[in-house]
């Protein structure tokens, strides 16, 4: 039980800490440059499918997602099945490879050190 509580506390701290970096756009933190072709592909796909509700990972019609510490398999689950009002995106809309690329882009966008 003690281990569980520690883990929960750790993730809440990560969430709060990540909350300090909700905004990751160029004017605020510097230029984002995709380092791999997969991340570059993910950036284009993010703009096609995700940007309209989570512009730059910030809140809008949907919630902020830059802070979201959930592991990638949960995020993928949410994309495939939807949650709340978020629509689901099936494999005929976003393929497995494309979803992987979007995930890589989101991770890079969130963590890349900017100039």
């Amino acid at each position, binding site marked *: 039980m003690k*281990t*569980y509580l520690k*883990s*929960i506390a750790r*993730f*809440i701290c990560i*969430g709060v800490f990540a909350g*300090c970096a*909700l*905004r990751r*756009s*160029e*004017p*605020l933190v*510097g*230029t*984002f440059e995709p380092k791999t072709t997969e991340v570059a592909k993910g*950036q*284009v796909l993010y*703009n*096609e499918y995700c*940007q*309209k*509700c989570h*512009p*730059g990972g*910030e*809140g*809008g*019609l*949907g*919630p*902020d*997602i830059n802070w*979201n*510490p*959930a*592991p990638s398999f*949960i995020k993928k689950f*949410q994309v495939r099945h*939807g*949650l*709340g*009002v*978020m*629509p*689901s995106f099936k494999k005929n809309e976003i393929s497995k490879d494309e979803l992987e690329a979007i995930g890589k882009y989101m991770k890079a966008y969130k963590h890349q050190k900017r*100039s």
Partner: protein
Amino acid sequence: MRWLPLLIVSVTMLGFSSCYKMRKSTGGGQIKTVQARQVNAADIALPKGYKIEPVTTGLTFPSAVAFDGDGNLYVVEAGYSYGEVFNLPKLLRINKGGNTTTIATGTNNGPWTGITFYQGNFYVAEGGVLEGGKILRISMDGKITPLISNLPTMGDHHTNGPVIKDGYIYFGLGTATNSGVVGPDNALYGWLLRKNTFHDIPCADITLAGKNFGSPNVLTTAKEDTTTTGAFSPFGTSTASGQVIKGACPCTGSILRIPVSGGNPEVVAWGFRNPYGLAVSPTGKLFVTENAYDDRGSRPVWGAGDVLWEIKDGLWYGWPDFSAGKSIVNDEEFHAPGKKKLEPLLAKYPNTPPKPTAIFAVHSSSNGFDFSKNSSFGYQGEAFVAQFGDMAPEVGKVMSPVGFKIVRVNVNNGVIEDFAVNRGHKNGPASKRKSGGLERPLSVKFDPSGTSLYIVDFGIVKSTKKLQLPQAKTGMIWKITKEGL
């Protein structure tokens, strides 16, 4: 079992973040009190190497700027604003030091939504809320000559643009309605009570699916009175499956053109909701920003992002059954929570809508834009777009303020990046963030040298569930330059 707490926390956090129905709208205009506008360029963040400064303040509903042949700066004040505020539209010259001189004053038929300068004259799009839209030519000494009048834009959206290309004036005509059906929301906008038979007009013959929508009858005083309305028809008029609506020109939701000297309009493209900003790229292609559907009225559409389109002659772009090239019919992506699923209004489509250049944030109100044409400024060939910002909750709920900034778009791959934003831990207009930064950018324009980007900032608009409250004399113009130029 070590992953269990992680799973519980993650799902809980996702769950909380996704409780859309339980959360109140937090739009940028949802402010409790309106205070005097502060101006502080330091509250605006830009990419490294750029600086921003105020040019002039105290404008009432400014909408666009232009430069004359000598490089002098001019601004149009719209006159009319959502919220049913009527002033006379004006063309002002901005003198050195920021004071203004009135060049021309229009009639009570705003809003003046855009301006361009060409061979010694200004060309202005007059929205036309009372008399119908017009394209005006205004001479340097202020003489106003309408080149075309009676454009059908007395509804939700107006006559927009213009740009001049290859000897023609191109301009946009917005639709009367949100999604093809006149409803009680149009009474809230004001026009249905003035023009109770007005409705959308297609550019070519269309065949209806015959869907009709029940609503309170806002044209009578009886409380329980209801009525039924079909697509492309006056309020209270039903339609039948297979019914053909005759096309006409001028038509709503379209881009039209006339010769610079005036003449009959031609349809360039149609099937837009509100084609607001028009600009020609450095390679000579015509682009337009489209304000997409709202979650309001008899046929609410949810989750529709604003769009940047490249215009191809003769094409239909999808309104009222598509959003950004994707069908909205029976698609959960566009199904407003707690409301009916969307059914088609049209029985057949003129063509398959094209793929958009870029999709902006839902309710961002992505409007006037211009292309960077000078490598000294940077981002050459990219479109810089002013995002007026959401008008929630009237247009639908948002979880955070959307827009209120300048973004740039790579038109080759659709990637959108912020360019000028207010500082702070959250996005939003200066009045909400209690800062001196951007309020509601409505359009941008590069100077003739392409080294300075001018931002037209409409000013403060307080938004409530039923109306907009725009604040006079809070508009201004900003200028962005690259340091060292």
